[in-house]
Structure formats: C-alpha cells, structure tokens
C-alpha cells in the first residue's frame, strides 16, 4: 500500500483492520489482499520485513504504519526515570552516559535474568514517555519500541525527525525474552529494572505504529 493511500485511510472512518500476517509466529504466511470501504481503515502487512538496528535512513523510509517487522541488532532500554535523567542531563549540557544518536530505544523494565540472557521483557506504556520524546529525537534517536498510543506532539516530532515508533506485543514478556540474545547494563545501574540496558535482539517482533511520514496506526483510537 502506498503512503498516499494510507494517509487517505487515516482520514476515513473510525474503524480499521489490519492484516497481520508478519509475525514470526506464522513464518512464511502469504499476505492477504486489502479491500476498502468508506468505514474501514485497512492496513496491509505484507510478509515479515527483516530490519537491522540501529536503523538506516532508507529502512526507516521504507516502513509504513501497520507493517510487521522483525528487528535484529542492538537496542537500548529506557523507561520513566531514565528518560527524566537523560532530559535533565541534556538540559544541563552534560555528556550522556550512552550515545543515543541513531539508536532505537525500547520502553522496557525487564525482570532480573536467571540463567538466561534476560528475564521477561515486554514493553511498557509509551505515553508516559511522551513529554520526554521530542528531546530524545532532537539528540538523534531514530526509533522507539513500546505499547499504545502517542500524543499528537510525538507524532509530529517523529515525522520531523524522520524516525519511527514501533509497538511490541504487550504482556508477552516471556515470549519476547526468547528473542533477546544478550543484556548488559550501560547506565544508571542504581535504577535496577529502570536502568539503561543494551540489548542484542534477533527477530524481535514489532509493528510500525507511527511511520516517518507521521501516519499513526492508532489515529482512529484517540480519545
């Protein structure tokens, strides 16, 4: 589906559907065809796209809201307190403990590892990070992984920064832990589960929720 048509769909009704065939749960599934009516907003997910992280500009440009993607490479966790601290450091002009330029940030506070790379590690609610997100995008962050809706400010900031926001399956932390190959704390160790961890992931399943042109998968579900 082209960007233009997705944009049109976003303006149509408040009902929408997704053909979601892309997760690794269904390897090799063929994708279904789209149909549209004035009251449906259908996003088609073609078969799984495999993308490396950190993200390249052309990969970001190729992603549309609704695409199912498998991410492989390095990402960084950060949630409420780490966001607060990073923003305070940016404001104070201090050197950051981790260079987020070009990186993907995952809103996640995992359970402690027990003889595995990581414990349960699903996404936390993204909207709590909304106030901090524009500042993160300004220092070069290119991607986010979380769950749920974002503010209109974040949608605009993602578009401006040519970045992307993914959602991962919420409440499937055990499932997702099998896609994480290593986990090292890189900053704010005192925050425990809220520290910044560097994760190496393989085929980590996500869905594009806001693409670099500002199309928002959840546009029809705003309050």
């Amino acid at each position: 589906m082209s960007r233009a048509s997705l944009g049109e769909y976003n303006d149509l009704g408040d009902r929408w559907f997704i053909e979601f065939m892309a997760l690794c749960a269904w390897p090799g599934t063929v994708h279904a065809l789209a149909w549209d009516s004035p009251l449906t907003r259908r996003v088609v997910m073609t078969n799984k796209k495999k993308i490396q992280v950190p993200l390249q500009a052309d990969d970001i440009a190729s992603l549309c809201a609704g695409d199912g993607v498998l991410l492989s490479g390095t990402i960084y966790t950060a949630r409420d307190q780490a966001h607060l601290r990073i923003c305070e450091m940016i404001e104070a002009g201090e050197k950051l403990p981790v260079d987020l330029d070009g990186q993907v940030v995952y809103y996640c506070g995992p359970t402690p590892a027990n003889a595995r790379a990581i414990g349960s590690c699903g996404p936390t609610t993204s909207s709590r990070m909304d106030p901090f997100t524009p500042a993160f995008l300004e220092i070069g962050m290119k991607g986010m992984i979380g769950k749920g809706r974002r503010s209109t400010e974040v949608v605009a900031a993602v578009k401006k920064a040519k970045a992307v926001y993914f959602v991962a399956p919420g409440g499937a932390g055990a499932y997702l832990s099998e896609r994480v190959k290593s986990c090292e704390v890189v900053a704010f160790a005192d925050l425990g589960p809220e520290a910044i961890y560097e994760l190496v992931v393989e085929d980590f399943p996500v869905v594009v929720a806001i693409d670099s042109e500002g199309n928002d998968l959840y546009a029809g579900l705003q309050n």
Partner: protein
Amino acid sequence: MSGRTVKASDIEKAVAKICLEANTVLREDVLAALEEAYRGSEKESGPAAMLEVLVENAKIAKKTKLPICQDTGMAAVFVELGRDVVVSDGNIFQAIDAGVEKAYKEGFFRKSVVADPILRDNTGTNTPAMVHIDPVEGDKITISVMPKGFGSENKSAIAMLNPTSTPKDIIDFCVGTVKKAGPDACPPYVLGIGIGGTMEMCAFLAKKALLRPIDKANAKSHIAKLEEEIKVGANELKIGTMGLGGDHTVIGVNIETAPTHIAGLPVAVNISCHALRSASITI
C-alpha cells in the same frame, strides 16, 4: 482463647507459593478465553496472530518459569480469615509480606514497589503487599494473591453516579473507561466492576471481582445481564487485541455489588490486561 493454631511461617510459605504460581502460570479461565479467541472467534487475522503470541507466551512462561509479564505487579492479597484461627509466632501482615518478598526474590520477579509515592525509593522487596482481611466463620484461612500490573491499573476509574442513573449510564461509564484505555493497557481486557457501597468499598469490590473466574457470571440475573451488556458494548469499540481491531476488546466482565446510600450510585472499573493473574490457597 481456643481455636486452631496456624504458624505465621506456614502463611509465609503459602503466600510465596501462590505468588510464584500466579506470576508464571496463567489462570485457566483466562488462558481458555484467549485460546478460544485465537482458535475460533477472532476473524481478523492480525489480532488472531497476536492472540497466538499470547497463548504461546503463557506456554513459555509455564515451561520456563519466566513471569508471564515483566510487570509482576504490586501484590493485592485477599484473606478470608476463619474466626477460630489463631496465628502463632508472628503476625499475619508480616507473614504475608515475607511470603511476597521470598517469591519475588526466588522467582526473579521485578520489584516494582516504591516506599513513598512522592519520594519513590524502591523497597527492593516488592512489599508491602496491599492486604485485605475478611473475617469469616470457621478455622481455615483462604488467601488469594493478585499481582496487579500498573499499565492497566492506571486506566481504572471510579464515578459517583446519581441514584437516578439508569443501567445505560452505568454501561456508558464502563465502556467509556475502556475507550479511554484504548490500546495502551494490553487488551483484550478483563473488567472488574464494583457497584454500590461507599467510594472505597466500591473500588475494593472492583478489584475483588477480578478474582472470580471470567466464565462465571454474577449469581443475580439482573447483574449478569449488565455484565453481558457491558461486554458487548466494549467489544463494539473494536479496539481489539493490542489495538489491532477485531472482536476481542474485552474477554470478561465481572461485577460485584454492595448496598449503597439513597443519594448515590458509585461505580468503579478496575481494568485488567489479558495477563490477569491470581492464585489461591487454603490453609
């Protein structure tokens, strides 16, 4: 005082056991509802694929003893304390906290509790638990633990409706609360709803309602009807699994009621994500 003596250390062990179980083994009624949604009733392939992930997640958690969700929650603990029970060698609150602490350490669960809501220092033990004790007849203690994640807790709401409000007003408030939660709090949801009582009793009933298996309707037929109507209304929102649309925005609605005042009609909605976790034990 006569009665049956139960050692505090036995309460501690029992609480630890059900905490471990609740966090790693998804409730049968919830798993059955997710499986049913995935195998049968979900017609949209997108949300169906996501439901499959959730069913798979439950299997992996059970097998590996990893928590179902990384938010292993704050422990809400419901105790039915037989009036003929005497707790020896300690007190019941300390025993419950000790059991929670033990489970969260041994299970490698996340410690998500801060000692002060403003200062926010993590207690490091996931305690204190939020404990509710009901005195009952008999010489047994029944304990239920519900680890409650805050993604969905944050979307909960209470309304003090007018006594002249209609069932439709109640439905509108409950469905409106789900609409506000949108895709953010891991749908499909289970709604625990309290109706009546005072404000705090109403909120308590909403949480307690989540303990009831979601395939069991309220025994009162007019309340069971309300449960069904709220479920239908919420599913018409088409938020769906992970916000991907489809037929499963809510997989269960449990209402508990209490007498209330002539001037009011309190309604509380405690939203639970699909990872509705609890376990019980009788000592």
